[in-house]
């Protein structure tokens, strides 16, 4: 059985956070809302100066900030970009982010960057490939690397494992954390016809360092992870189940399309707080 001090790989529970987005910055700095922490997209702050870094410094003055990325491309077969890692490392010194998260995916090849989060084939080859690279990244950045499950819209003929077995094998072999995106589990379960509860129940609980919640867009034949709109009830149910398994884990609301007023986003964060408290009480 997992003992409490092993949970989250010993990393802190930051509570409930939201993504730091430009349309909200001024209001956040003026009103200092009750949010436990903010997540930033690292790439938006890899600039020499100006407004982005000024906003970041203002946020850092009052809140913990965690770095989340979209460009690591940990599963790509092209070499790791050490210039990018150096820049991430410099930003980590500024943010003091307790961990750095990115996606268990690939984003492109040597000649094309799709700026998308493409799923990997769930194979032994991919496990070895990703785990090797994740260890190098973790060693280079000197903070725990936390990998997030992505939403996917296709499955590969070469896959030999379930997505959750693949995720588990990668993070165990790489000795890194999991950012469990509960909405992504729901989206992929609907797109590929698996049981989302089986996924939640199989993830190595002690490695779950952070949780993402978000809305999505249902196109009928498939669902896209658009980070738009509120979290839907089946995703809240999955979140309850997840908290019941993994305990008090830093949770973040993502909302990137049709960004609502800050009050709406904060209300969604408060709902997450309530659901999390209920789930923790129930688990006790």
């Amino acid at each position, binding site marked *: 059985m997992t003992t409490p001090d092993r949970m989250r790989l010993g990393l802190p529970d930051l509570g409930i956070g939201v993504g730091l987005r430009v349309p909200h910055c001024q209001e956040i700095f003026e009103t200092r809302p009750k949010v436990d922490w903010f997540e930033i997209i690292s790439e938006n702050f890899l600039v020499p100066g100006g407004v982005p870094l000024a906003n970041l410094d203002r946020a850092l003055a009052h809140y913990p900030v965690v770095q989340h990325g979209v*460009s690591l491309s940990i599963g790509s077969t092209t070499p790791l970009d050490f210039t990018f890692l150096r820049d991430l490392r410099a930003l980590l010194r500024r943010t003091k982010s307790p961990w750095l998260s990115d996606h268990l995916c690939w984003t492109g090849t040597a000649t094309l960057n799709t700026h998308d989060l493409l799923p990997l084939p769930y194979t032994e080859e991919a496990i070895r490939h990703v785990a090797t690279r994740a260890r190098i990244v973790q060693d280079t950045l000197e903070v725990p690397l936390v990998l997030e499950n992505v939403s996917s819209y*296709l499955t590969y003929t070469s896959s030999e494992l379930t997505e959750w077995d693949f995720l588990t094998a990668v993070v165990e072999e790489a000795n890194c954390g999991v950012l469990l995106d509960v909405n992504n589990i729901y989206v992929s379960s609907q797109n590929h016809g698996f049981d989302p509860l089986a996924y939640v129940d199989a993830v190595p609980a002690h490695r779950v360092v952070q949780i993402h919640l978000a809305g999505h867009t249902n196109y009928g034949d498939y669902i896209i992870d658009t980070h738009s709109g509120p979290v839907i009830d089946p995703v809240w149910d999955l979140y309850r189940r997840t908290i019941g398994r993994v305990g008090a884990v830093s949770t973040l609301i993502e909302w990137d399309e049709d960004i609502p007023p800050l009050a709406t986003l904060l209300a969604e964060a408060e709902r997450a707080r309530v659901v999390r408290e209920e789930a923790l009480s129930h688990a006790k």
Partner: protein
Amino acid sequence: MRNDLAAVQAYLASVIPGSAPIPADPALAEAAACFVTGNARLTPAAQVDIYRRQFWLRHRELLRDDFPGLAHLLGEERMDAFCRAYLDAHPPAHAPFRRMIEDVPAFAARFDGLEGVAPRALVVDMARYEIALLDVRTGPDAPPLDPQKLTSLPEDAWERARIVLHPAALRLSFTYPVHRLRKAWIVAGEPVVLPDAPAPVKLALYRNRDLVTHFEELEAEAFLLLELLAEGVPLVPALGRLAEPLPEDRQAHVATNVGRWFQQWTTLGIVVDVDLPASS
């Protein structure tokens, strides 16, 4: 056919940037079935096609976000055509979006869909200006000028003192006044009216101490002086080089106005330091 990790990625990278639907192309659809399973609702080609559509929508939105002035200038349909052609010619190869857009002005200079839409020089100027705006907003920071430093300079210092300009400030020359057009269309919401003729302009584009971006139109001599200062030429020699080729009346104009220019650049935050090298 190989279907290891590298083969899967090479296949998807070869089809995702395409513009034609994958299910409509028998060869691509057949290849998709080698790598992708499909499901009860979607064929393998239809699954891959989701990523192709997302690629287009994502990058179109990105280009529209970074180039709203260009989008106003070209109109909805022509902007879409421009984005398609640009992505075909310059598929994004790097993660930073700034690198993805760096070829937009050069591409605008040769894009063949501008006939009857707008003068090419205007389109190129707008693309250059919008990239400059992005660069000024995120360029390096610099502490403001310490006024004490100016007052404490010895009288002969201007012979050798290097005027340090804000590292994020840019000096720009355009054939058309794109800064005013963009402001009218994007900020003031005025309808797009194309200028009848070129109206060359020189600008300093900078951000103030509140990090708000502004432009300042410059006289030709003021622009040249700023260029010399940016190269590291001290003020007095820079004025000498500036004045040398000028007719007398323009030399007198410079002499009359240089103090005002310098004061203005200092006030605006374009001048951030005066570096006085140690005497040898």
